[in-house]
């Protein structure tokens, strides 16, 4: 990284290169709320109406000429009503962002998903719905999962239709241009109200696979690139394990049954989890062509949220990467205290390890740990999903005294090399996605795009890296005139 880039990042507002481009934003820094640490900026509610389309300022660097499309992101953004804080970060209403990039310009807009939960809580001016970490008000009717759907976890675009994803209810269809909510997505009449996990898997040719998790019973969706449901089937995973994510090769689905079990999915859901390490981390491997053709693999007990991607070698060995924890990281205050500006050190002392799971054709799986401790949100090149590959990018740079991460790291499984860029303590770094370069021919031929919260300037930023040169720092940064709360996951379309 050259000095000017570092200077810009440390200054919060461009001088050096950015200054010479005349692109410095004169945003007035947003002071932290009284008594709140600077990082609490990431946990403050967004305006009820979201954000109307507003151009972002190119604050640094040069925009890649071939970068054209939209970065969609989702995350909880209603954290407070009056003096009352949400009980859990995961229960905040989903705010769906679109950052449209074309001709070097970026325009940000965002809208809350219009759910029953959102409508009734906005009308009442208080939290009512039960949820992951919320007991809820007795007056709030719940006739099905979508009545408590927060639509706040991720996004997917299928055949031009934008879907806001949660994990325990339907996807919510939205207009990909205006972000207006159309309503819960029903893939087939007999599947109305079935959950649609927030981590669908998209094959390089556009076919989408996803799970519907309901205790030990798991549904499998196969959706054509056109958006038509091609198949749906059910499998049994043996116990009501918590499933946030999963993985797949070109031939098999791999459902990770972690020993974090919740037999009683009543609110607050988080209170019902039980760590049962005696089961180990089990994996159900399902043939994509015949869901009844299954086999199990076993690994030591681990907890996880997110996988990278899997592939299959010629002898049938399956390899995939995943961030694994030796014990659950929820249930000790994580996800609840941050909203109130508190940081529970106990919640921050268990770090995930980016790990490669190797499942031989027969016998137990082995865990190959990388040196990356404290990373999350692993992502891979979309054209290599399900295929043999070696690159994984993830957020890194955790600190003991605060939530979030400050860096991104590219890990090379083949060489063991890793490249990191750390923005420093004034930034909170979110998930970065691979965007294939025009005409690219390798995994490294990609841009990485993601959002960063600039605590010093009080603004949200969109950063682009060259996947082959992560440690050089961003190639460009757009800065909004304002900030929006931290989110979870995004997609590029």
């Amino acid at each position: 990284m050259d000095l000017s880039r570092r200077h810009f990042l440390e200054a919060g507002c461009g001088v050096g290169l950015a200054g010479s481009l005349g692109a410095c934003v004169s945003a007035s820094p947003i002071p932290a709320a009284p008594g709140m640490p600077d990082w609490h900026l990431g946990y403050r509610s967004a305006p009820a109406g979201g954000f109307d389309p507003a151009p972002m300022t190119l604050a640094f660097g040069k925009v890649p000429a071939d970068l054209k499309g939209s970065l969609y992101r989702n995350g909880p953004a209603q954290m407070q009503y009056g003096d009352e804080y949400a009980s859990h970060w995961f229960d905040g209403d989903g705010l769906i962002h679109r950052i449209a990039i074309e001709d070097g310009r970026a325009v940000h807009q965002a809208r809350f998903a219009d759910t029953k939960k959102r409508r009734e809580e906005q009308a009442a001016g208080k939290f009512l719905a039960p949820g992951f970490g919320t007991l809820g008000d007795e007056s709030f009717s719940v006739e099905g999962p979508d009545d408590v759907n927060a639509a706040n976890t991720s996004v997917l675009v299928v055949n031009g239709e934008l879907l806001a994803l949660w994990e325990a209810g339907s996807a919510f269809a939205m207009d990909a241009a205006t972000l207006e909510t159309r309503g819960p997505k029903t893939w087939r009449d007999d599947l109305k109200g079935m959950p649609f996990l927030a981590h669908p898997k998209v094959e390089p040719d556009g076919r989408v696979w996803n799970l519907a998790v309901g205790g030990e019973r798991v549904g499998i969706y196969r959706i054509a690139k056109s958006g038509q449901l091609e198949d749906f089937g059910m499998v049994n995973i043996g116990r009501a394990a918590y499933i946030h994510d999963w993985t797949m090769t070109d031939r098999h689905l791999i459902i990770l049954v972690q020993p974090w079990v919740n037999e009683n999915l009543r609110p607050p859901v988080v209170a019902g989890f039980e760590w049962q390490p005696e089961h180990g981390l089990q994996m159900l491997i399902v043939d994509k062509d015949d869901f009844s053709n299954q086999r199990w693999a076993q690994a030591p007990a681990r907890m996880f949220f997110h996988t990278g991607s899997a592939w299959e070698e010629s002898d049938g060995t399956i390899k995939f990467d995943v961030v694994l924890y030796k014990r659950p990281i929820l249930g000790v205050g994580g996800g609840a205290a941050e909203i109130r500006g508190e940081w529970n050190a106990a919640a921050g002392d268990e770090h995930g390890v980016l790990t490669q799971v190797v499942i031989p054709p027969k016998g137990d799986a082995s865990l190959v740990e990388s040196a990356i401790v404290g990373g999350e949100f692993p992502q891979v090149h979309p054209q290599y999903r399900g295929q043999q590959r070696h690159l994984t990018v993830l957020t890194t740079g955790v600190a003991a005294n605060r939530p979030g991460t400050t860096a991104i790291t590219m890990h090379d499984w083949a060489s063991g090399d890793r490249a990191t860029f750390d923005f420093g303590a004034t930034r909170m770094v979110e998930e970065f996605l691979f965007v294939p370069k025009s005409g690219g021919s390798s995994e490294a031929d990609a841009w990485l795009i993601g959002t960063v919260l600039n605590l010093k300037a009080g603004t949200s930023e969109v950063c682009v890296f060259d996947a082959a040169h992560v440690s050089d720092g961003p190639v460009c940064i757009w800065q909004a005139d304002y900030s929006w709360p931290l989110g979870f996951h995004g997609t590029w379309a």
Partner: protein
Amino acid sequence: MTRLSSLIAALSTCLIAAPLASASDLTVTVEGIAKQQGSIMLGLFDEASYEGDGAVDGANLTVEGDSVTVTFEGLEPGEYAVRLYHDVNDDGEMNTNPFGMPTEPYAFSNDAKGRFGPAKWDDAKFSVEAEGTAHTITMN
């Protein structure tokens, strides 16, 4: 004799007419039906039958517009509740998704909503008065 016969006849009339004199009609209208096909399968319950399988009375109503109406005659005045579903595909069953959640529209009297289950009796009950009662349920 004639007087006695008249008296018996009068008493008989009274006995026959007695239930009618204290019985009521209930007219239930179901509005806001989204799909103009299939049938509204409607059950009328009292408190004792509400949680069970049996109903006090019921009706299968062919859907031809966005509302249907049925009148139950000769009810004892008192508290009742209605549970109904829209059998859109007319297969005689309330269809569910693989996790058991209804995929066909349903409703309760008072437009009552459940919380992790059917609407409670106390939320769905309404009074059928001696002079007759009309009750409207709106599907949504």
